[in-house]
């Protein structure tokens, strides 16, 4: 892998992460926030893959698998919470749920 490809990939991963962060900040719908979170995880995952390829090591791919598992676990919890909120309080807007403060 050439250095240029590596840099492009790193930039791409940074872009995906930034997009995800923007989405998380800007959207108030919970579902979109979850999607944004997934994107935020995907960015660094790509960076790990790229780094692994650059160094010729398997550890980058191992970390990728870890992140996939983390993302799956997170989205499972997140969707469960989302469904519970929809059913219980019928909310879509994440700013309106502040109950945990108390």
């Amino acid at each position, binding site marked *: 892998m050439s250095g240029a490809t590596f840099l492009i990939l790193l930039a791409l991963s940074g872009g995906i992460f930034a997009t995800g*962060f923007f989405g*998380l*900040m800007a959207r*108030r719908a919970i579902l979109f*926030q979850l999607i944004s979170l997934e994107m935020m995880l995907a960015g660094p995952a790509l960076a790990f893959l790229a780094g692994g390829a650059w160094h010729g090591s398997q550890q980058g791919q191992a970390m990728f698998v870890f992140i996939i598992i983390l993302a799956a676990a997170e989205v499972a919890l997140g969707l469960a919470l989302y469904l519970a909120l929809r059913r219980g309080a019928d909310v879509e807007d*994440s*700013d309106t*749920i*502040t*109950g*945990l*403060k108390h």
Partner: protein
Amino acid sequence: MLSPYLLLLLVPAPPLAVFLILGLDPFFLRRKAVQALALLGGIAPFFAMLPLLGLCLGTECYGVMPIFTLVFGQSEVALALLLDPMSTLVGLTVAAVGALVITYAIDYMSDARIADLRRFFALMNLFLAAMLTMVLAGDTITFFFGWELMGLCSFFLIAYNTSLPQAVAAGRKAFIITRFADAFLLAGLLLLFLEANSVRLDVLIPAGTMMTEERHVVIALLLLAGALGKSAQVPFHTWLPSAMAGPTPVSALLHSATMVAAGAFMLARFSPIVMSEPAVQTIAAIFGAGTAAFGALSAIFQTDVKRLLAYSSISQIGFMVLAIGLGAPEVAIAHFVVHAMFKSLLFLAAGDITHGSDLGTSLQAMRGALRRRPISFLAYVAGAASLAGLPIVTAGWWSKEAILATAWEGGAFGIAIWVLALLTATCTAIYAFRPVFEALQPEPAHISHARRGHPVALDLHYRPRWGSGFITLPLVLLAAGSLLGGIIVGPIIRFLGAEAPHPAHLPELVAAVAPFVGMAGAAAITFVPALAAAVAGARDMRRPTRLDRKFQRWVIEPYVRLVRFLAGNRIGARAEAELELRHVQIVRWLSRGARMDGIYQALFVRPFVNIVRWLNGHRGGTVDPVGTFPVSLALQGTQALVERLAHDRFDRFWMRLANRLVRLWVLVCAIQTGRSRDYALGAALGTAALLVIAWGTTWN
């Protein structure tokens, strides 16, 4: 090829099987079936013993039937049954007496509730099986198994009448005292096992005779103590008179051929060990003769026929122990056989005569027996004659004579013992015939329900059914044995491998006269009113009777004069009064079985109860003091520590800190909006800041 000794296993097996069937009762048997089974189990051992006797008389009389062998590290434990002359003879006697007693009990117990009947016969059969196992045992483990099982059965049987507190108490007393003595026996047997590395009697006993002096004495004394306890010899005798609370067949079985006689049998079994130690032998002879004399004297003063017979058992087994102490176990076994016959006869006959009487088993209940129960009365007379040892015509005379002759041949010590034994024999005749003469008196016209003395046996279930063959047959057979059995005393002793002693003519003549003297004495204390009153009053000596006054003149006053002379006439009036009181105490002491009960009560039972109570928090103790100690120690320790630190500075410091923290918390809480986007932003900024810091640290 099957060993003929396999038959040995068949001897205790039928009663054991009957015990299991009756005990578990899988078929819900009916009354007749229970009785038939019990009878079968009772009689079968006798018929299993007969071929063994034939074998023994015919070919070689020695055989071992191994059961199984255990390997214990370096030692082997081989369980086996043993056939030798002694086990054949005693086994046959036990089987015969057991069969007859159980036959008798079929009728005697016929009115009991079915559940009680089953329990009774199950236990009787187990008892018989245990005794037979013990007699035929070829090793100490089997021996002890039978020995202890008998103790257990005696507990259940004496306490057969479970709703009667005194019966239960008597059962407990018998069990605890015999168990106490059994501990000695167990110790002796285990020490022998360690010495010989085997439990087989044929290895153990020869090894036992070759031990070092010190161990030998210890083991012989332990065995002796075990025998004294089981045989109710002084000082362990107190359980036997109380044990009369059991039903009459139980007493007949317990006190004739089994249980109490087991101690004498055990000593005979281990006689090579006991006999190779002269000191222990002498102790055994003294205990035996002393117990014989004591038992006979005590029996005279009893007012209850079963208690009288109980003391008689104590006395007669004393004779057996005496014979073993004199080095003649064969003679002891001969007396064992004869005693088994006449003692069971006496119990069975007395039980038959007194039952249905309002007076329980007191002597007065015997009155009018000749008219009411002629067969039983005649059987009783035969038994009493044998017990008293009327010369030539009774079996008792032959066996007792053999013991007396053995004593006579034993040097100066032997002659002293002979004199004591002769006096005992005289007393024996007195107490043996006292119930007979009592029975000849007319029945009291008005029978009072207020019982005198201690009516111990209350056979609540008994309703006499006169003329039953189940009662007559055992009585007739046993009476015949008690009278004619004398013929076999000589052969028995030879069969066991010894020569019957040949006494000199003079002592033999004297001994032959003794029973008649005793009979005269018995007649005197029954028919001379003054004497009768004296004996009857001996139990509670409130005022002096005429006999007492004679006793005073001929015994006490010379004694007082002697003491005064020895003391140089300086004896005070108070001491004199004490001396006069003493004879009263002596008679009372005898009539109450040496008051050993009281002594034990004071010496063992009371302190034991006190200790137990104290340990349980009565009498000013704490409950379970040893267990409570660490707990209370720990509690007090922690309490002291906690009190010291309860209001400490550390505590105040932490509390102040906590209050500040709470105030800080209120300030910080303002950041908390609850909106997830705010938190996400915070997290992002924080991460960015961290990255910046990390970047900054790479500047050089």
